[in-house]
């Protein structure tokens, strides 16, 4: 299952790649790609646990980059 998000408020490209790394480690995430320039985050994850996975993603973002907001497109 794939979802796309608008990701706003990232400070720098390096933060984007670090956040990407942390999300990649989450259980159920097959692939994540964050693009600092297009402000896009693409997630590929196991469909069965969508709610749980998205909640974890939001948690990680809240912890690492509290100023960042994401919005599904």
């Amino acid at each position: 299952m794939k979802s796309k998000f608008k990701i706003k408020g990232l400070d720098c490209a390096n933060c984007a790649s670090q956040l990407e790394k942390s999300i990649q480690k989450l259980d159920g995430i097959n692939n994540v790609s964050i693009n600092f320039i297009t402000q896009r985050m693409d997630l590929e994850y196991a469909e069965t646990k969508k709610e749980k996975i998205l909640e974890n993603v939001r948690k990680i973002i809240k912890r690492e980059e509290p100023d960042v907001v994401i919005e599904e497109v």
Partner: protein
Amino acid sequence: MNKKRIKITISLILFVIAIAIDFDNNLINNAIYVVAYVIVGFEIIKKAIRNISRGKIFDENFLMTVATIGAFGIDEFPEAVAVMLFYQIGELFQNYAVDKSRKSISSLMDIRPDFANVEKNGKIQKLDPNDVKIGEIIIIKPGEKIPLDGYIIEGKSSIDTKALTGESLPKEVKEGEEVLSGSINLNGVIKIKVSKEYGDSTVSKILDLVENASNKKSKSENFITKFAQYYTPIVVIIAVILAIIPPLIISGTTFSDWLYRALSFLVVSCPCALVISIPLSFFGGIGGASKIGVLIKGSNYLEQLANTEIIVFDKTGTLTKGVFEVQKVKAIDVSEEELLKLAAYSENYSNHPIALSIKSAYNKAIDEKQIAEIQELPGLGIVSKIGNQNVLIGNEKLMNEKKIDFTKCDDIGTVLYVAIEKKYVGYILISDKIKDDSIKAIKNLRKINIKQIVMLTGDRKHVGENVAEKLGLDKVYSELLPDEKVRKIEKLLKEKSENGKLIFVGDGINDAPVLAISDIGVAMGGVGSDAAIEAADIVLMTDEPSKIVNAINLSKKTMKIVKENIIFAISVKILVLILSALGLTTMWGAVFADVGVSIIAIINSLRILSVKNI
């Protein structure tokens, strides 16, 4: 953002006051420095504390905080403020530059329609294109973007498809023809019947593709991310060593002198300039390519294109037009016009591509009353009576069968011989035609030193070889079945060097396995063809093969800029590190170099957008 600017301004004013005026009591100067520092640096310190509590010690906020507090510690008050101040100013500039480039790149792809005028019960409603359903009627006025794909049911106009295809000549359209979303209606009012929902329409497909493209990362991007991972920790560790070891082993040096050098290290330890300019370059390249009608599905493909060694073309529909055309009319004792007329009348009831090509070459109304008799002889031709003349039209076999004395034509293509009242009067040569653009494409490919240009075709040997010879190709493989094409590509893949790439260019029809096995699969004439967009890595929106040369040139330009940025940023950083270690630069110098490199690298990336000369 504005708040940040005000803070920077106030801090800057205080900083200048503290430097310019020597207060009697040094404490006043220092107090002003501290106030200036807190105003500009508070956010950074806050973030640093937050991040350190989560174990992110190589965070740039933290490193800046350590560097500046360290400067206070060794009584370098102006340095501390300056570093924080210039770091923030640099960030501001960087954000501005990134924002600006983000906008200018997005504007290249600004083909998204905002509304659709839908006709419902005789009234016109302005709706979001997302809410329009298949079968609904929409009206497009001159100057408006066509919001959804559909067929014209009323009106005619010329439309500008530049945003989709890069083609600058407007296209004339009339009733019954398909128009694609993303084009701009230039003059007439047209009514169209919607054939695809917005999500499936050409414009959303293209936007989706280009926006997704930069999420497929190139090797250079991965390299930089990796580099950043090691760079910061290494610089920080060296900084720590620098602060501790030399004062212990070199006599006569002070601890604070070496600490100062170490703090300069921390100032340049952020890898951001690199990390941002590389994906920005690729994004710019992909944006620039879409401007010339080339859709690239990933940064990785844009990167690989520069290493093209072998390029393999499909023949029909790629290098040739893929449609039959009358190439030559040879008339004996009758006029060419008369010969063509008799042929067109004889073929009147046939829909075979050959018949259609004759009728289109004749291009006049056919008076069916003149057709007295028509009899089709399968595999041979047609026997007919047009007016009061008995006409034979067909291949060699027909002429032999009817015992007509004729002269054989050895030209490449399909030859139709014509006889009136059993007397041979000439022939019509029909064949697929090489695109004018193919000649240009091959010429330009030679200019950029592609090692091998190969053509694959399922067509007969003499046809294939004729096309290859006319275009001056290196190799041609004819009479191939689809699976044999795959095997030929496999063989060619072995002929390239380790880093070289093989590109296959086809029209996207029945090419899927070959597109998949090539390093880069290019489908041509992608406008409106879902299959081609799906299967290929790169889609040429027009049917001009020369666009692939533009794409290769764009790739080379992008890679040049990427390399420039990598080399430039890394060497400046290393230079500053060396100078800092030797005590030859100040922390001011370090922060200037760091911020400057970022901005220059970003500006350099933006050069890709000027694609006029490609």
